[in-house]
C-alpha cells in the first residue's frame, strides 16, 4: 500500500520569482521525510505542489508512479495538516475528524465509529463531543492528525504543525508524531524551519535554500557531512573560516585559514575531496569540535576569550581569533579579527576562562570539513 513520491525536476515560478528550482528526489513509501529550510526557501510551495494546491510550472510529480498533473487536492491520496491546523471551529471534535468521511457520503453511524477509533488512536477517547475551542494546543494538534487520517491517505503532509506550540509541548509532540507515524505506517512529509524537529523525527531530510534542494540525507549525513556551505552553516551551529587549499594527501587537506599555522582537515570524500591545491575554500568547525589544547598540539591556534555564555549542561565560549571573517575573502588580510564559538560540556575537565584570557584551541582533522565557498545561512 505504500507509494513512492517522485519529484521530477519540479520548478515553480511566480512571475520572475523562482520559488522552487528543479527539485528532484524520490520519497520512499512509509518514510518520514522532512524538508528543512529557512522561511522563503520554497518548502511550503513544494508541499502545496504535492498536495495539489499548486501546479508546478515545470517538471512532474508522481505518486505511486501516477502523474499528478491536473488532479485536484480532493482527488489525491494526500492529506495536508496546515500550520494553523485549520480545524473547523463550528463543528465538534468528532465532526471535525469525520468531515472527510461526511463529504464522501459515509453514513452517520459509520462516521461516528471511525471517529471513535481515531480518537482512541490519538488518546482522546470520549472527547468527541467537545468543541474545538475547549481543547489544548496539543490536543488540537492530535485532532488535526486524526482528521487527516480519517480516510486513510497514503501520504500525510505536515506544514510546520508544531510551530505554534510551546517548547515542552513541541518536544513531546515530536515523539508523538514519530510514534503515530510508526503505528500507522504512512509516508509523512514534514515541512519545518526547525532543524531540531527535522533531525530528531525524520528518516531523511532535504535541506532547502532559495528554492533549491541543497542536500538530501539522514540526520547524521546533513549534520556531519554537509555538502554545501549553506547546509554546513544552517544545520546546527558552525564556525566558518575562509581560506585557501595548500595541498592534499591521504585524505587530508592542508588549509591556510589565516591562522598563524596551516591546519589539516579531513577531505576523504564529499565536495571537499574535489578541492584542488590553490582553490579558495571554506572550512567548518563545529563549536563542540573545538577544544582547549596545548599550543603545540596539531591544528592548535591561539584565541582570546570574549565572553562565556553559561547554559547549565553546556558552556558556550565566544572566542576571537585573528584572520578573515566568514564574509570576507582571504584578501581581507589576516589582521581582521573574527569570532568563533566553542561549546564545552559542563564538567570539571576545563577550567573557567575569564574574559580576555588567551588560550589555545584546536580540533581533530576529521571533526571539521572543507567545502567550496558558498552562501551561508544568515543567523
Amino acid at each position, binding site marked *: 500500500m505504500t507509494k513512492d513520491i517522485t519529484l521530477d525536476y519540479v520548478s515553480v515560478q511566480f512571475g520572475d520569482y523562482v520559488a522552487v528550482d528543479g527539485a528532484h528526489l524520490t520519497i520512499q513509501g512509509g518514510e518520514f521525510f522532512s524538508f528543512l529550510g529557512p522561511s522563503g526557501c520554497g518548502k511550503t510551495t513544494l508541499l502545496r505542489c504535492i*498536495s*495539489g*494546491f499548486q501546479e508546478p510550472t515545470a517538471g512532474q510529480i508522481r505518486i505511486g508512479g501516477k502523474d499528478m498533473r491536473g488532479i*485536484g*487536492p*480532493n*482527488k489525491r491520496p*494526500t*492529506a*495536508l495538516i*496546515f*500550520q*494553523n491546523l*485549520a480545524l*473547523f471551529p*463550528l463543528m465538534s471534535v468528532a465532526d471535525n475528524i469525520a*468531515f*472527510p468521511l*461526511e*463529504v*464522501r457520503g459515509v453514513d452517520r453511524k459509520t462516521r461516528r465509529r471511525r471517529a471513535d477509533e481515531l480518537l482512541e488512536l490519538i488518546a482522546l477517547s470520549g472527547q468527541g463531543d467537545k468543541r474545538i475551542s475547549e481543547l489544548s494546543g496539543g490536543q488540537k494538534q492530535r485532532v488535526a492528525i486524526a*482528521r*487527516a487520517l*480519517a*480516510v486513510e491517505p497514503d501520504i500525510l503532509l505536515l506544514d510546520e504543525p508544531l510551530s505554534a506550540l510551546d517548547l515542552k509541548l513541541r518536544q513531546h509532540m515530536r515523539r508523538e508524531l514519530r510514534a503515530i507515524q510508526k503505528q500507522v505506517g504512512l509516508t509523512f512529509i514534514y515541512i519545518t524551519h526547525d532543524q531540531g524537529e527535522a533531525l530528531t523525527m525524520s528518516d531523511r531530510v532535504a535541506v532547502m535554500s532559495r528554492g533549491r534542494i541543497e542536500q538530501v540525507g539522514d540526520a547524521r549525513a546533513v549534520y556531519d557531512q554537509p555538502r554545501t556551505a549553506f547546509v554546513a552553516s544552517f544545520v546546527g551551529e558552525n564556525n566558518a573560516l575562509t581560506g585557501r587549499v595548500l595541498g592534499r594527501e591521504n585524505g587530508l587537506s592542508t588549509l591556510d585559514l589565516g591562522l598563524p599555522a596551516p591546519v589539516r582537515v579531513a577531505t576523504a570524500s564529499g565536495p571537499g575531496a574535489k578541492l584542488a591545491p590553490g582553490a579558495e575554500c571554506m572550512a567548518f568547525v563545529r563549536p563542540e569540535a573545538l577544544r582547549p589544547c596545548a599550543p603545540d598540539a596539531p591544528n592548535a591556534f591561539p584565541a582570546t576569550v570574549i565572553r562565556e555564555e553559561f547554559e547549565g549542561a553546556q558552556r558556550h565560549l565566544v572566542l576571537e581569533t585573528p584572520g578573515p571573517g566568514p564574509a570576507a575573502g582571504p584578501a581581507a588580510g589576516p589582521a581582521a579579527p573574527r569570532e568563533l564559538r566553542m561549546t564545552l560540556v559542563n564538567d570539571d575537565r576545563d577550567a573557567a576562562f575569564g574574559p580576555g584570557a588567551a588560550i589555545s584551541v584546536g580540533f581533530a582533522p576529521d571533526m571539521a570539513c572543507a567545502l567550496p565557498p558558498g552562501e551561508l545561512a544568515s543567523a
Partner: protein
Amino acid sequence: MSGLRAFFAGFVDRNGLPVAIYLGLAVTIWVFLLVALPQLAMLDFSFRHNLPPSKMGGPEDVYTLEQYRYFFLGSEIGGGDWNALDIGVLFKTLLAAVAVTLIDLAICYPVAYLLAHSARGAAGRLMVLALIVPFWVNEILRAFAFRILFGATGVINEAGMAMGLWSAPIDFVGEDVALYAGLSYAYILLMIFPLYNAIESLDRNQIEAARDMGASRIQVHWKVVIPYAKPGIASGSTMVFMLTAGALAAPQILGGPSNLWFTQIVYQWFNDGGNWPRGSAYAIVLLAVCIGFVMLMMRVFRVSIGAIGR
C-alpha cells in the same frame, strides 16, 4: 446594573468626560427621539378613533381596538368575515419580500465570496466601487429607469425582439419582473457587505483543508463557508427583508396594475383616506408581523440575535 455603571465609568476614563457626554446624549436622542417616540406615537394613534381635530381630546377620544378589528375583520357592513383583501396583501408582501431576499442572497453570495477571497488589490477595490456608484443615483430615478428598461417599448423588449428571442413585447411590469428586479437591486448592498464581512474573516486554510479532505467545491461552501457566514447571511437577509417589506417607492412605480404592496395600503390610509389611526394600526401590524417573521426564521436557522450585530 452595576456592570453598566462600571462600563460607563470605564468609558469616561478612556475617552474623557466631553466625549462621554456627547456620546451619551447622541445615543439617547437617537434611541428615544428618533426611534422610540415616533413609534410610540404611532402605537398610541393606532388605538384611537379617527376623529376630526375639533373632537380630539374630547369625551369621544378614547382608546379602542377598532382599527385592528378593521384590519382583521373588515368593515362592519362586510358582515364580520375576515378582511381577506388586506390580510392577503400583507401575506403577498411578505412572500414577495422573502423572494427578493432570496434573490439578493443568491446574487450576493458568490460576489461576496469572490470579493473576499479572490479579488486582490485594485480589482477588489474596483468591484466595490462598481457596487457603490450606482447607489449615488436616487431611488425614484432608479425606479423610473427600471420602468423604462422593462417597459413595452423598453430596451429589453426592443433588444429581445430585435434578436428574435420573442415576437411580441413581454409585459415585464405586469408580470412583476420589473418590481422584483427593482427591489432586488435597491437593497443589494445591504446584502453584499454583511456577507463580505463574514466571509472575509474566514481563514482561507479552512477552505483549502476542506478541499484537501475530499470536499467538492459545493460541499466546501455548504459545510464550511455558509455555516461560518451564517451571522452575515442573517444580518443581510434581515435588512433586505425588512426594507423590502417596507418599501413604497419601488412598488408604487414598478408594480403592475394588479399589484398592491402593503405599504401602499398604509400610505392610502394616511394620505388619501386621511385616517391616521387606521394607517398607524396597519403600520404597526406590518412591523409586528415582520419582526415576528424574522424572529421565527432566526430560530429555525439557529442564529442568535447577538450574531446579527456582528
